[in-house]
């Protein structure tokens, strides 16, 4: 049984799996956060104008701004969850690769 061959085979497949499952995650998170912050700026500007021009009372203005900040926190938690789900998928993928490689090796 050639363990180096098995090891290299597993490492190669795991690296490919990592790239597929986790590779695009960073760019996706950065882009989503950037878009959200740009949209937030426009929203908060509109609410501030409404508050300054006495269209809305102070407590409603504060409620809107605080909810927007809460929404950002919610999005961060979703992103964290998505990353954990992808890590779970990655773990399952690694497990499958190792089991298949071991099964082949003992044939």
């Amino acid at each position: 049984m050639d363990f180096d061959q098995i090891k290299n085979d597993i490492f190669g497949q795991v690296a490919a799996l990592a790239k597929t499952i986790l590779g695009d995650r960073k760019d996706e998170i950065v882009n989503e956060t950037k878009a959200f912050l740009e949209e937030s700026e426009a929203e908060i500007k509109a609410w501030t104008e409404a508050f300054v021009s006495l269209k809305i009372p102070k407590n409603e203005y504060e409620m809107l701004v605080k909810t927007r900040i809460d929404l950002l926190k919610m999005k961060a938690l979703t992103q964290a969850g998505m990353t954990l789900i992808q890590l779970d998928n990655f773990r399952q993928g690694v497990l499958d690769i190792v089991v298949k490689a071991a099964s082949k090796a003992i044939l």
Partner: protein
Amino acid sequence: MIALHDPVSYRTALDLKVDFKFLVEASEEQYDSKEADVIKFRKAFEKSMAYEEGRYRNELTVEQYQIMADIIKRFVDTWKENGTISEFTRPAFLKQSQAAWDEIIKLERAKRTEGIKLKIDKTAATSAQTNI
């Protein structure tokens, strides 16, 4: 690792999202006339939060529910204090709060339907056993 997908949680979050939408829309009317609806909604929300807290490895969703509890409390307090919510604020707040519900729904929908387990290649395993 994270909790597995739960259809009950998913359905409940969708129902709460819609019920909260009706509540925000109702805030054009005096709080006192809608207080019974507010109480009913808060009871349903608390029940579903307790359910989420009881789920294994569900910390992220529980945190999202805690943030949602703050959003709901802030809204109810403002409505109570002002009597009604202004025409400008209602749609703006509705958009923010519905997006917050969507985050809970999005995370639940994305969760795996089964846990990590060994997927043994049956053909290889059978051949291996025959060779022993």
